[in-house]
């Protein structure tokens, strides 16, 4: 079994969490979902040390508070969309600024810059002013700035919430690429269960409890529990689960075309 890279042990925090424990395995893309006010953002803030809790968060088996802040900010990158700020005027300047403090040879820095520009399709945007970017591009830029540092853990708080499906797919493709290629551990909260499908592991939390966990498809099949706590199933999962109940299909099908082919051969 892969060891946990970061974990919360027996956390009690106001009325949000009571004796709450959760573990995240190394090199895994984990998503966390739950109804409004279940503590998703608080969890992200606790994991990156913004909210200080004593002896409850362990990063690589050591208490978070035993690390120097600079080490943590290098190894753990966090994106909370409502808290994004910029220092420079253009995308290029901002990317180089974030590389400045990383101890790397100039050639490696240039390679990283080039790779980010390619993966994020910034080629024609490099000199664009950040204030002219739309909200999607701003989140994408923030993700570029986090990934250019190649952190060990990437913490994302519902970053796709305001995005269209096409935009969400673009971000999910980037995340999958970096997770697989660089073995970055990704922990992402989301209010939309559709965004959990590409992850390796899914936690559903409600009332300070993990009420469901496992592979996304295993979890999402529990439609009654998810609906009861106020979560909406992705359309294709919902359709599949109901068609399975009527014995019209055997397995969950995520692709609409294939579903049509299965039903009407």
């Amino acid at each position, binding site marked *: 079994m892969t060891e946990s890279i970061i974990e919360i042990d027996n956390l009690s925090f106001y009325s949000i969490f009571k004796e709450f424990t959760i573990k995240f395995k190394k090199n895994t893309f984990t998503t966390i979902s739950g109804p*409004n006010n279940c503590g998703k953002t608080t969890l992200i803030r606790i994991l990156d040390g913004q909210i200080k809790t004593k002896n409850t968060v362990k990063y690589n088996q050591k208490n978070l508070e035993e690390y120097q802040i600079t080490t943590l900010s290098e190894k753990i990158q966090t994106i909370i969309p409502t808290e994004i700020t910029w220092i420079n005027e253009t995308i290029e300047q901002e990317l180089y600024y974030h590389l400045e403090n990383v101890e790397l040879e100039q050639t490696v820095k240039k390679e990283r810059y080039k790779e980010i520009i390619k993966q994020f399709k910034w080629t024609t945007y490099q000199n664009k002013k950040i204030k002219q970017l739309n909200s999607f591009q701003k989140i994408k830029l923030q993700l570029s700035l986090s990934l250019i540092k190649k952190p060990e853990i990437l913490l994302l708080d519902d970053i796709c919430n305001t995005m269209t499906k096409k935009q969400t797919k673009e971000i999910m493709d980037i995340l999958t690429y970096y997770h697989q290629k660089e073995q970055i551990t990704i922990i992402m909260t989301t*209010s939309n269960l559709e965004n959990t499908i590409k992850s390796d592991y899914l936690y559903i939390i409600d009332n300070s409890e993990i009420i469901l966990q496992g592979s996304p498809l295993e979890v999402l099949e529990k439609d009654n529990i998810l*609906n009861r706590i106020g979560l909406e199933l992705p359309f294709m999962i919902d359709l599949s689960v109901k068609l399975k109940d009527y014995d019209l299909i055997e397995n969950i099908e995520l692709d609409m075309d294939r579903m049509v082919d299965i039903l009407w051969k």
Partner: protein
Amino acid sequence: MEIKIKKLCYQDYNITTTLNTKNIIGITGEETSQILKLISLYLIGKGNIFYGEDKIKKENHSKFQRKNAYIEKEMTIIPYLNTVKEYMINFIKQNQLKIKNPDKKMQDSLKIIGLEQNYLKRNVVELSTSERKKIQIALNLLKNPENIFLEDPFLYLDMKEEKKLFFLLNRLKEKYHKTIIFNTNNANQLYKYSEYLLLIKNKQIILEGPTKEIYLKVDYLTKKGFEIPEIIKFTYLAKKRKKVKIDYHEDIRDIIKDIYKHV
């Protein structure tokens, strides 16, 4: 009453439409918040806007703007204010509302949105996302608006809270005869909650009409880059590719019944 807009220009926007009030109207496409602000008179463009028979001019602009509520995506937190009551008093002052019995009005406002009176004492920063959304609406109800404009109102809400907010907006329309106009790019929400839809592309309305009819133009919408509600998309695929005689439905359970009949 109608809101008539003729060649309303602002920056690159150019809008012409007629909106029937006492309706739930959705707006979707690129940068639609500016359009919400133009129609609600929170932004001033060039061109003609008529609220009923009245043409909006410099002289009557503020009078008609006062009839509109504009509810932003997120509630603005004011550092020197704490409780809901303080926010309400501040709203009354800022909007120069002449209210005979402010305490009763504040209580009534909360009652309409289904919140208890003790919310007046609650600290706004401690409220949840859905509670803040309701308080934003309650604040605006203090001025008894005829039209309520909302930026992406369902954005941060889970399914349960999303439905609750819709019931509230629908009640404001049905019982209190308010017109609800909101923007979002979530096709599923527009399909479920709006009765009339404006589609915006290149800062112009490229299509408008009853929502249920608009979303049946799947090929056109796809070509123009608009998302299709999944429930429509699935039925459309089955009809197109397999020539199956299933109907378009709003509820997934009705589709299942149809599929059961036709497989």
